[in-house]
């Protein structure tokens, strides 16, 4: 240790563990704990990452050094797996869900935030409460309804389901951000000559932008990862990536190398998104929380 203490530390043990020293010690412990936690969380991802570049035989050997191959990424796009179609479905479903969810949720959130509505709290709680219902419980009614409407195994059907899933989160999240915009600012804009719509367009949307981006990503992730409904409501045409994973079960057992390659294809957009908008994400999260 190179630091010099103004207080002599040659005395008893209790003198040694004072002030700054103690603080620094706990900081170190914290850092170590965080590293351990991060490592535990990363292990499966590292494993998948390695397995995706291994051959079927190598997967079962826990070797860190091997000759990587890109073959798996080719195979998953070929028949019978045809991951390309699933990737297309997932992309369409997730994007369209977000494109519809965010504007609608923003309008709802603004109303909840700025107007006094009848039964406002009740409505807000009910919106959230829809999320407390286990998906398995409502999947059968959904199935029958969609069958009668001819929406089974269609992307439109999946988009509708996903909208139902992401809307409550989006509304609550965006409401938090709009609540954080000072009312003074909006009122100033109104006195300055804006109509309500101009206030929303010129003031609220730009100021809530980090929140909207955060909510968009959140909704995209929810829709992208959605498994249960897609499993029940699709079988051939509208199958999404998470369901596609189940294809890699052959007679010879689970094809871990292919599973891993597909897994990486599923995760990749998440990583790219997270990196691209990291700034917004953190800013957004703190802004919503602290206010």
């Amino acid at each position, binding site marked *: 240790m190179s630091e010099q203490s103004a207080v002599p530390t040659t005395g008893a043990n209790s003198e040694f563990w004072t002030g700054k020293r103690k603080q620094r010690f706990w900081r170190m412990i914290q850092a170590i704990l965080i590293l351990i936690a991060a490592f535990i969380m990363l292990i499966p991802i590292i494993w998948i990452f390695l397995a995706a570049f291994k051959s079927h035989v190598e997967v079962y050997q826990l070797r860190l050094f091997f000759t990587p191959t890109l073959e798996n990424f080719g195979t998953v796009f070929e028949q019978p797996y045809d991951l390309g179609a699933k990737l297309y479905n997932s992309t369409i479903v997730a994007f369209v869900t977000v494109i519809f969810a965010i504007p609608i949720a923003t309008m709802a959130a603004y109303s909840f935030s700025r107007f006094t509505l009848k039964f406002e709290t009740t409505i807000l709680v009910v919106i959230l409460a829809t999320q407390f219902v286990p998906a398995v419980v409502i999947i059968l009614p959904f199935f029958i309804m969609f069958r009668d409407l001819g929406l089974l195994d269609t992307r439109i059907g999946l988009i509708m389901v996903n909208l139902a899933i992401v809307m409550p989160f989006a509304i609550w999240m965006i409401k938090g951000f709009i609540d954080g915009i*000072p009312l003074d*600012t909006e*009122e*100033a*804009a*109104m*006195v*300055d000559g804006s109509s309500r719509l101009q206030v929303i367009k*010129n003031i609220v949307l730009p100021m809530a*932008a980090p929140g909207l981006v955060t909510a968009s990503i959140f909704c995209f992730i929810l829709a992208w990862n959605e498994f249960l409904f897609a499993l029940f409501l699709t079988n051939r045409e509208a199958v999404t990536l998470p369901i596609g994973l189940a294809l890699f079960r052959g007679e010879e057992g689970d094809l871990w190398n292919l599973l891993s390659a597909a897994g990486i294809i599923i995760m990749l957009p998440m990583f790219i998104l997270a990196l691209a908008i990291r700034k917004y994400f953190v800013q957004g999260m703190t802004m919503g929380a602290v206010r």
Partner: protein
Amino acid sequence: MAEIRLNNLTKRWGDFIGVDDQSLHIHDEEFLVLLGPSGCGKTTTMRMIAGLEDPTAGEIWIGDRMVNDDLPKDRDVAMVFQNYGLYPHMTIFDNIAYPLKVRGTPKADIEPRVKKAAEQVELTEFLHRKPKALSGGQRQRVALARAIVRTPKVFLMDEPLSNLDAKLRVTMRAELKHLSRQLQITTVYVTHDQIEAMTLADRVAVMRHGVIQQLGTPDDIYNDPANMFVAGFIGSPAMNLINGSVQSGMFITTGGTRLVGIGGPDRASAILGVRADDMSVHDPGQGDIDVTIYAFENTGESTLLTVQWGRQRVIARGDRHLRKEQGETVGIKLNPDHLYLFNPDSGDRIRLGDK
């Protein structure tokens, strides 16, 4: 430019009365200050004029138009908010230009007008910055510039100086006064700071519990308060209020001291109001009453003597060169021309010489 008329204006939220059936006529080009403690209805009154709050009853006229049903944007007013209400995502230029842009001013007109407004509040060099890069005082100037960039019928200012530090508040106050004289636009200014009210106003409306207690020039309000509330609210230090009674023309304190002759009929109980400035400090025996000093304070420009007056404490102002010690005895003389008598139950002023 326009006058404002409030006719029997009322604002209620459930059982809570914000503004209670008040009428007020604000003249063209007048600077009117709404003064009162928090919760007295002054801000509510202003927000109703701006259209940010709907009155429960009554009429609001700006010029020759009743604006009750007009949206804020159609009332042609400009407002400065306590927290400035700036647009944090826009540059200072865009902040100031916003009222022009949103009202469809031709592009060629916008720049010179923004520049002129920025010049008037000395902000020219900051136009490209964002609000968060400015200090509190500078932000306040942006809010002002945004208000003066158009020529609205009415200026509304909601405690615009209250977020500034004490020193800045004094300089901004002078700038505000200078600007308002220059622009000559009807202004309604809300504050709880009586010095701001005294210095800026053409007329002051002192409010309490949603009711205007007194409407008058700063001189009227200071020298001729309508009731005990106004007397106690205006002036620093606040007017001394001494409990006692009137017997054969003399005011007698609760402690039994015969204080000063004020005339009028006998009253079993009354409150005498006297300002610190209307008491002079003398040697013991030379004044109306001898008192001991409870605390002696030197403010630099004058001295303040808190004296024990029977069971009450009273503040007198002394000469800046006066030096006294705690516990000393001094004589205090009251200026008989500036004594006020109040009814202790209602708080109403009892005019001396009234029957």
